[in-house]
């Protein structure tokens, strides 16, 4: 009522102003000039124009929407406030271009925006409205057509005007209309999906999926548009403050859509692959009403790990929103993986191997749950890394190793292919070989004896053939966490190995200076450690302690190679060797780089030689004792 009064008042005012002008000038052109020169009359005319716009809007609304619903009105007013504020902000950026035409263009933009929002709301309402009349379809389709055409026209217009006249306020309009165009597309896709859904009596399960993907794709376009707009605006004009809010919102919704798609895909994949179908007995046992749709469950049901049963299709649509069990809210993505033994019987030790948690509190206790140490029996050949599984004769190391070592002496690790990880770090060993005196001997034996006391590694499952592909995949783990943990372990191992090398070197230096046969201790540990063929190769090397350093570079490698060969062929659980021989096969393994190797001080410059010497001595003694016990265990194993 009040608005009608205001409109009437505005018409009367305009009539008075125009009448007055005509009365004074009595001719058309002079009166027009008079009107445009007089500010009060122009103000009244602008007001009249505004009233016309509103009337036009009402007319369009009548044509395309009929009566607006309360929720639609609410949305419209809420969004209009933001849009008006942003338009005012835009005015500040383009204050130089400020003119009635400019204002008119912005009003038109706002006007069209309002209809885009209304169209969106109307199409959303389609889903829940009980009856969709033919009129509704005609209205929505014609509205979408008109809006899409207008958007396209203005984008086109803005594009050519920018090309011809250079960057101006048309840039803003171009982008605004382009974004509105994406909105129209979204509305259209929704309309089509809802229409298809309405055609059939049963709800269409895949609709939500399509909606999700449409949202994702159009959200991506929107983000790209906004970012481009932002960049161009900053280059051409200034920072477009008015675009911040919609840009943020579109980015957030895009992120959410992306997150939703990823999480729901993961949950649905889990559901399809991991969770068992509910058996008829299970359905009979309890209340067989699906809590989601409240209908009886007869077939096509899935049982989650928390033993709650739902329709597969209901679960799918729920997982698109949230990845928890609807009943107990257990996180389906965090659920422990189902015991694969349910399907395929596995040997009992396998159950202990199931990693409870991939997070490792620290390095060594963590290795108990570490699946990567279980080697698959046939190691597939791995590219350039020398395969180690065929038992090579002890005296002939794999072909690629000597060149790598030779080059390492000159330019450590520069042009050499990635060294076989089992060898440790060639650059370090090379530098040590150059730095150490003649007493440098047999570093690997003492190194391994140094390592073994820590080796609380789990026993790999004995019969790998009994494991299914799935179980192996579970043990291996594919998640980022697992891979990261693995890399961390490998780095830890490398650090330990490097540390051991430094200690050995120090010891040997000290031994050379004090003329204690440094090899002796190492030799015992070595012979204790691997009594078979490895010790055969150790003996000659150790006895030839005074050979030149170039020979030493080669010898330790060959020993190490043979030793690991013998050990792995014996299938012992000597973990370091296991680990080293498995490194090249491990997923996520990166060949050791130089930056990981800690710098070491030349032990000859070390001041506390005596102290170190004592500590080292004690340690070696303890290790040889430990090795004795290990040797006993090995013997026992062999007896078995």
């Amino acid at each position, binding site marked *: 009522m009040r608005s009608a009064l205001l409109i009437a008042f505005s018409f009367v005012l305009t009539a008075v102003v125009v009448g007055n002008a005509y009365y004074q000038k009595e001719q058309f052109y002079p009166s027009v000039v008079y009107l445009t020169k007089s500010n009060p009359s122009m103000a009244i005319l602008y007001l009249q124009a505004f009233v016309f716009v509103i009337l036009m809007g009402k007319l369009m609304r009548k044509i395309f929407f009929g009566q607006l619903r309360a929720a639609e009105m609410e949305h419209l007013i809420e969004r209009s406030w933001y849009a008006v504020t942003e338009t005012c902000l835009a005015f500040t950026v383009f204050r130089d271009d400020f003119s009635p035409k400019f204002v008119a263009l912005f009003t038109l933009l706002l006007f069209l925006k309002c209809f885009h929002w209304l169209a969106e709301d109307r199409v*959303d309402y389609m889903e*829940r409205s*009980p*009856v969709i009349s033919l009129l509704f379809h005609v209205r929505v389709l014609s509205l979408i057509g008109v809006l899409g055409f207008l958007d396209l026209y203005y984008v086109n217009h803005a594009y050519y005007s920018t090309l011809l006249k250079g960057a101006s306020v048309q840039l803003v309009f171009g982008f605004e209309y382009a974004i509105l165009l994406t909105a129209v597309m979204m509305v259209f896709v929704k309309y089509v999906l809802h229409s298809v859904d309405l055609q059939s009596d049963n709800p269409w399960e895949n609709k939500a999926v399509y909606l999700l993907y449409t949202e994702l794709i159009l959200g991506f376009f929107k983000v790209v548009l906004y970012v481009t707009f932002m960049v161009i605006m900053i280059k051409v004009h200034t920072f477009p403050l008015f675009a911040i809010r919609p840009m943020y919102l579109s980015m957030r919704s895009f992120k*959410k859509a992306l997150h939703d798609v990823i999480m729901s895909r993961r949950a649905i994949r889990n559901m399809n692959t991991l969770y068992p179908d509910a058996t008829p007995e299970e359905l009979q046992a309890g209340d067989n009403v699906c809590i989601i*749709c*409240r209908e009886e469950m007869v077939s096509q049901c899935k049982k989650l790990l928390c033993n709650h049963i739902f329709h597969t299709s*209901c679960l799918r649509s*729920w997982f698109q929103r949230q990845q928890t069990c609807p009943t107990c*809210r257990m996180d389906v993505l965090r659920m422990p993986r189902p015991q694969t033994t349910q399907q395929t019987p596995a040997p009992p030790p396998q159950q202990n191997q199931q990693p409870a948690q991939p997070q490792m509190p620290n390095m060594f206790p963590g290795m108990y749950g570490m699946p990567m140490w279980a080697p698959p029996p046939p190691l597939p050949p791995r590219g350039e890394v020398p395969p180690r599984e065929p038992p090579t004769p002890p005296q002939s190391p794999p072909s690629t190793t000597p060149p790598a070592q030779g080059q390492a002496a000159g330019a450590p690790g520069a042009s050499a292919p990635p060294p076989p990880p089992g060898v440790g770090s060639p650059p370090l060993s090379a530098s040590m070989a150059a730095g150490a005196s003649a007493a440098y001997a047999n570093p690997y034996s003492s190194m391994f004896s140094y390592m073994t006391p820590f080796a609380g590694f789990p026993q790999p499952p004995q019969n790998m053939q009994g494991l299914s592909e799935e179980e192996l995949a579970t043990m291996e783990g594919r998640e980022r966490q697992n891979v990261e943990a693995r890399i961390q372990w490998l780095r830890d191992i490398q650090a330990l190995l490097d540390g051991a090398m430094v200690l050995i070197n120090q010891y040997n230096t000290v031994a050379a200076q004090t003329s204690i046969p440094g090899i002796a201790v190492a030799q015992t540990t070595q012979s204790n450690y691997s009594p078979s063929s490895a010790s055969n190769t150790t003996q000659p090397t150790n006895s030839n302690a005074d050979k030149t350093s170039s020979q030493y570079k080669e010898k330790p490698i060959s020993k190490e190679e043979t030793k690991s060969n013998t050990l792995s062929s014996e299938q012992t659980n000597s973990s370091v060797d296991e680990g080293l021989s498995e490194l090249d096969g491990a997923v996520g393994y990166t060949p050791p780089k130089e930056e990981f190797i800690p710098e070491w001080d030349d032990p000859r410059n070390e001041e506390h030689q005596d102290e170190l010497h004592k500590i080292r001595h004690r340690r070696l003694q303890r290790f040889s004792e430990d090795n004795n016990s290990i040797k006993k265990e090995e013997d026992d194993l062999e007896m078995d």
Partner: protein
Amino acid sequence: MSVSVNYTQSPEGIIAGPVNEENFFEWEALIMGPEGTCFEGGVFPARLTFPTDYPLGPPKMKFTCEIFHPNIYPDGRVCISILHAPGDDPMGYETSAERWSPVQSVEKILLSVVSMLAEPNDESAANVDAAKTWRDDRKKFEDIAERTVKKSLGL
């Protein structure tokens, strides 16, 4: 999609059902003020609006009468955690465990509202004035509640 219409089994003090036979997504509910509270004797009409994806999304509930309560917005919207979808957290305190899940039925929602009427939660106030009055001036709160009760009965 299927909203179970359960006139008979609704708990005591609650009547609820669709507004009309054409649109099952709009329900009307009458809630009696729980006994032994300051809302005792009142009959409060409310409207439940179900989303299209119900029961995957929560319905909205809005009292269509005047009611002064810490957990009811001045415009009548009900603010309880089980009516919030896990994504949005208007009050910023709820864990996802107390949010909407398809397990919740209309009955449970209405029961929660009744218990909310009986025991307002002034920790997360939708109506700050009401929460403050409830906390600081219980006498005044009860007076206002009595007035709304009388109003709801048309007295």
